[in-house]
């Protein structure tokens, strides 16, 4: 047992740069401590360990941020990232960022607004976690638009469907902000995006939006978290090899799904025995990014296949030699490939 794990450590090391290995391993090992065998979660220690950053209305590298509470009852908070306007006024002062809330983003151009759901297997991280704040800033600069990062409620304290509810509420809120309008129509040009559990949330919010006739222009799912009762080949083959173990995935599903449910629950297994038929649904086009060393990939590929079978537009970006979390640091080719794909996805 110890022997096979040594091999695992060495394999992961071979495919990721040093910084990435350090970062993801640190999370992996710290998270081992936080998941208790009895299904409870050490939230206090998790919050103590999570590196957070404050929003900052002073632009840094052309991007500034501010936080907004959109629902006092649930405490739902979003962090908004925007590109700083060129400084045309001589007396430009920092408050200008807030004053921009009066005007639409643009009357002529289309400015994409991406609602982003951070990952963490429904349990970890926050919108103000350093890794996600950094990622969202990069994303904002890349798309030259707005990113709304949702601080959704997490499991096990808040199980299904809380995260989906928070996502839906944010989508409605975003659509009703006059200061997010753009283009000649004008309307809010909304995309949904997320990594890991965030990708799962994006799917479900998009589905609800489609049913309610609320427009979403596209979904971007970065190694989204899906699953099922069946053990797929990738889960067996890659178990424990690249930072993730199947038993951990199982723990997070148990923590998220309603008590007593199994992984064929439609939240988890989208096109499984209890899945909803997507044929004829006005579902947004999707970009699904799959990492070749992610043990969840077979579920992600089933998801892509399911979308195709339902006649939905989907592009698969399969990054053969990528592990989970490759996009946290700009130190590998997969990161740049991803950025290019995202950029063209929101401008097409």
């Amino acid at each position: 047992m110890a022997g096979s794990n040594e091999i695992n450590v060495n394999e992961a090391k071979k495919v990721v740069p040093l910084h990435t290995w350090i970062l993801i391993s640190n999370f992996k090992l710290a998270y081992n401590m936080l998941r208790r065998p009895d299904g409870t979660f050490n939230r206090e220690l998790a919050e103590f360990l999570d590196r957070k950053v404050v929003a900052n209305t002073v632009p840094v590298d052309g991007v500034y941020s501010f936080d907004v509470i959109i629902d006092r009852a649930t405490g739902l908070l979003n962090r908004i990232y925007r590109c700083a306007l060129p400084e045309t006024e001589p007396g430009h002062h920092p408050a200008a960022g807030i004053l921009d809330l009066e005007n639409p983003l643009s009357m002529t151009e289309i400015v994409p607004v991406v609602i982003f759901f951070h990952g963490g297997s429904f349990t970890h991280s926050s919108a103000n976690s350093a890794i996600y704040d950094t990622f969202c800033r990069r994303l904002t600069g890349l798309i030259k638009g707005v990113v709304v990062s949702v601080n959704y409620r997490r499991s096990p304290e808040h199980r299904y469907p809380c995260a989906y509810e928070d996502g839906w509420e944010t989508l409605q809120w975003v659509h009703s902000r006059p200061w997010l309008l753009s283009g000649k129509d004008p309307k809010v040009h909304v995309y949904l995006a997320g990594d890991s559990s965030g990708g799962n949330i994006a799917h479900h919010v998009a589905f609800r939006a489609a049913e309610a006739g609320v427009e979403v222009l596209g979904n971007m799912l970065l190694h989204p978290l899906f699953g099922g009762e069946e053990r797929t080949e990738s889960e067996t083959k890659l178990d424990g090899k690249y930072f993730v173990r199947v038993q951990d995935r199982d723990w997070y599903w148990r923590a998220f799904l309603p008590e007593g449910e199994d992984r064929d629950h439609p939240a988890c297994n989208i096109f499984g025995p209890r899945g909803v038929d997507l044929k004829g649904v006005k579902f947004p086009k999707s970009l699904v990014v799959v990492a070749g060393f992610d043990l969840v990939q077979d579920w992600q590929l089933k998801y892509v296949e399911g979308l195709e079978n339902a006649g939905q537009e989907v592009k698969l970006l399969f990054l053969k030699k990528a592990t989970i979390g490759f996009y946290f640091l700009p130190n590998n080719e997969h990161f740049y490939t991803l950025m290019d794909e995202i950029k063209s996805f929101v401008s097409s």
Partner: protein
Amino acid sequence: MGPTPYNSSNSSSSACSSSTKPPPPQPPDQMDHLLAGAGYKVRSNDLTQVAERLEHLETVMVKSSPVDISDIGNDAVYYNPTDLASWVDSLLTELNPNGSGSGSGSGSGFVSGSGPAYVSDPVMNDMNNVYGEFGQQVVTPIEEDVSIRLVHVLMTCAEAVQRGDLSLAGLLIDDLQGLLGRVNSGCGIGKVGSFFVDALSRRVVNSPQNGVVQVDLSAYENEILYHHYYEACPYLKFAHFTANQAILEAFDGQDCVHVIDFNLMQGLQWPALIQALALRPGGPPLLRLTGIGPPSLDGRDSLREIGLKLAELARSVNVRFAFRGVAATRLDDVKPWMLQVSPKEAVAVNSIMQLHKLLGPGGPRGPPVDLVLDWIRDLNPRILMVVEQESNHNQPEFLDRFTESLYYYSTMFDSLDACTAQPEKTLAELYIQREICNVVCCEGSARVERHEPLVRWRERLTGAGFAPLHLGSNAFKQARMLLTLFSAEGYSVEENEGCLTLGWHSRPLIAASAWQAIPKPSVVTTGR
């Protein structure tokens, strides 16, 4: 386990012998910027070492049972997770107390793209400055037309004040009064806006050069406001609670202890400490408390009164206690000999929202804060506890101060909205209003609310010869538990490189840090 002394560079960098392929030479203290963007501080030169320790940690974890692993999560105390190297080492110590082994020895095998080896887009790669500047933010969006206009005019008015165009400012204030009439002044920007309009108008009418704009309250009135502020929101309670925890730990094993409180007020902080010392395993020490406060002008000796009450409490729980009051209008009027510190005792200096008052213009002997920090250091305290407002209200430009305080106090007022008790809430608002007024209206030595953020205090205290004592996960957990006693959800405790902050949602509003004096080289130790 008490707060640990700062473990600066020594632990990991010296044992770097087993790495096979050293990264390109970097200045020794160069922090890796990629991991900095993830919130971690690791020296570039230590990266391989840290990786090895992580590998070692993994092999140890694999051999442990899940129960053991989650137990160390429950029971052990951790410090400063930003320092990744020491964090990994502390986990190793918890899981593997007997083995102090170094890394598994194999530093090879990493893909060589470990630096920015790919074509770099300056936006992508240079995240060094992300947390360089501290800026303000807002928690509730200002979207209603009237509110937007209110902020707009407030800013324009403040700009006019900064330029010295007081007649324009006066006109704008009339505008503002009109807007206040239309906005919902019961909450949000309307409420805090009215205090700022009031402050601006005072400033315009009585320009700071002409004299006092803020009438001093009597000590009694001050205490009333303070007490209601204490009750209405958790900021002071958090400060006291966190400070007492750290002081208690610093006093571990000491028989004679002396607490110097820079602002005694009603001594609200001390009953809890007295009781905690009473319950200490091994029995309580002899506790001396020196309380500093303004001289009483109304004939009462309020310092002594508080001292007597605390003495009575101490007596009731069998803690030997001695109190001394030191009356001083300003902290820099206090001379160390007034504190009568004895070499045998362990000293704790407790400064809750006081040090910023020393950042004003200095006298011939230099900036007041430096003088005071210097004599604090001479006392060789086991702990200097500092709690301060987490904002920069001491910027040289008036407009910057105005803007930053507008957002800081909006957030604070937002959090107060959750309190419904009266008259606590109204009087707490008045307490805060006085702070606002001081920041906005006053200048020179009259402006005492010169708040500066944690990052600045760290620089200042480190420069003055103090080393951090980290507040750990136990203090963090207990602070969170304290907050659950409040019905209002929305307060959040965060860990910030060994310090704790309390804020409203994602905005820290006050920061608590603990420090230890580094003995001066020239001091001859006389058995302290």
